């Protein structure tokens, strides 16, 4: 073996070792700082992980884009939902007066909140855009209780990594990481454009996550769970969306 090829071999070996070491170090850091999404497995895992990690590094705490009142859409489009089930219809028949939000999981004080309870907490409003993964969008003013207010009351344990939320409709649930869960613009939304939140738009209670696409903002919320792992929820992919082929993280 000539000197040159030996030198080449050594260089290549060192480069490969450095490359593998770099990947291993990056993977270790990504796990430590929570930069790996629950649906990181499979052929699209690398792209999904890069997107989620990059967006979390670039702006985990950036405020959602807000708009002037003049830009509120006159005629917002309510996306279709599955026909309401009987449980929802029973609540609707009595004006949602018995609607309750149960909060459990890794919290110090599991609790149940009526809509009136939520209204008695600090209520805020924001003018933000709903952007659907299909491409359309509209702007509305949303009124509600920041999720973080509820999480502070129940006392989320420090090891919590995800907040899981469930619709009253079957098989409709999502989860978000703590960057979005504690974000001041993530609302338990009760009102829209100076009125109650219409049923078509998710009333009486919708979790709005304005820094992600519309499908993360689940309508008709009845339960919230704090957890340190998504392994035991559904197929362990983070939410119902990846089970239907859609990405868990919808920041893009």
């Amino acid at each position: 073996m000539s000197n040159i090829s030996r030198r080449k071999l050594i260089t290549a070996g060192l480069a490969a070792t450095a490359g593998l070491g770099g990947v291993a170090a990056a993977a270790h850091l990504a796990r430590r700082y929570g930069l790996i999404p629950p649906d990181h497995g499979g052929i699209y895992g690398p792209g999904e992980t890069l997107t989620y990690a990059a967006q979390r590094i670039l702006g985990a705490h950036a405020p959602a884009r807000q708009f002037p009142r003049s830009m509120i859409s006159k005629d917002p489009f309510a996306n279709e939902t599955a026909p309401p089930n009987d449980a929802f219809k029973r609540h609707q028949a009595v004006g949602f007066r018995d609607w309750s939000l149960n909060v459990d999981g890794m919290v110090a004080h599991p609790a149940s909140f009526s809509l009136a309870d939520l209204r008695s907490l600090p209520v805020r409003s924001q003018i933000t855009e709903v952007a659907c993964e299909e491409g359309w969008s509209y702007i509305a003013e949303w009124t509600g209780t920041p999720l973080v207010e509820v999480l502070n009351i129940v006392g989320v344990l420090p090891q919590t990594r995800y907040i899981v939320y469930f619709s009253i409709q079957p098989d409709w649930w999502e989860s978000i990481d703590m960057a979005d869960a504690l974000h001041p613009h993530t609302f338990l939304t009760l009102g829209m454009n100076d009125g109650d939140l219409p049923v078509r738009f998710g009333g009486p209670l919708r979790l709005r996550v304005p820094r992600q696409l519309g499908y993360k903002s689940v309508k008709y919320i009845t339960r919230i769970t704090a957890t340190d792992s998504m392994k035991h929820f559904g197929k362990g992919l983070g939410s119902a969306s990846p089970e239907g082929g859609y990405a868990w993280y919808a920041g893009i």
Partner: protein
Amino acid sequence: MSAASPARNPATPRHTALVRVTHWITVLAFFALLITGAEIVVSHPRFYWGEVGNVMTRPLFTIPIPSSRDTVPTGFNYVMPDQNGWSRYLHFQAAWVAVLTGLVYAIYGFWTGHFRKNIFPARGDRTWRAFSARIAKYLRRAPPDEAEAHSYNILQRTAYLGVIFVLFPLVIWTGLAMSPAFTAAFPATASLLGGRQSARTLHFFVSGFLLLFLIIHVAMVALSGFRSRMRAMITGGAGAPSLTTPEPAPALAPELANQERP
């Protein structure tokens, strides 16, 4: 005797290994982006200008195809199957491949002088006269002169320059301007374009220009000798005029130029 026009030296490929590898990775990523992008458009084949747009607002234009959503009034009595889930996964994964490959290529291009030597128009060619002279030459179907066998002419350079430094950056920017999390961190990326829906419309048109480039590029490759050009981009094409050695051996160059047009 010097066999040995440097241009013919088998050790001097027409395209360097890095250019060849990044070229074909980009081809794969671009096709994935094109197909999945078209698939995503199918779920809402309406385009708008400004910040917002949906089926309740007037579109800038619509593409006359059925949609994969029954909420979109297309005039067709048919709803296509929903393919957005995997399309979106693959679109962003392919975008990462294209961006990271492009980054490697751009660093290489500046570092080695590839851009300076082969892509930026040569000093004497930065005139409208040079531009129109080359167009006239194409129209006459005149064979390339000796220098052109070894390098790109002004029109080729302009096209590559536009793709590398205008269309690719624009398609990345307009794509990111549709991301609610990215625009939360960098709101100007959306507002400078006129809003989210403007970004989406621009993304569509820039992709169209990239597709147009692809069609012309492949057509030109076919016209100038498909096999030798493909060989040059796959194996390096030893024997083909090299882009990496700007000074050709004068005696050989015209023959080589002729070789390229069967």
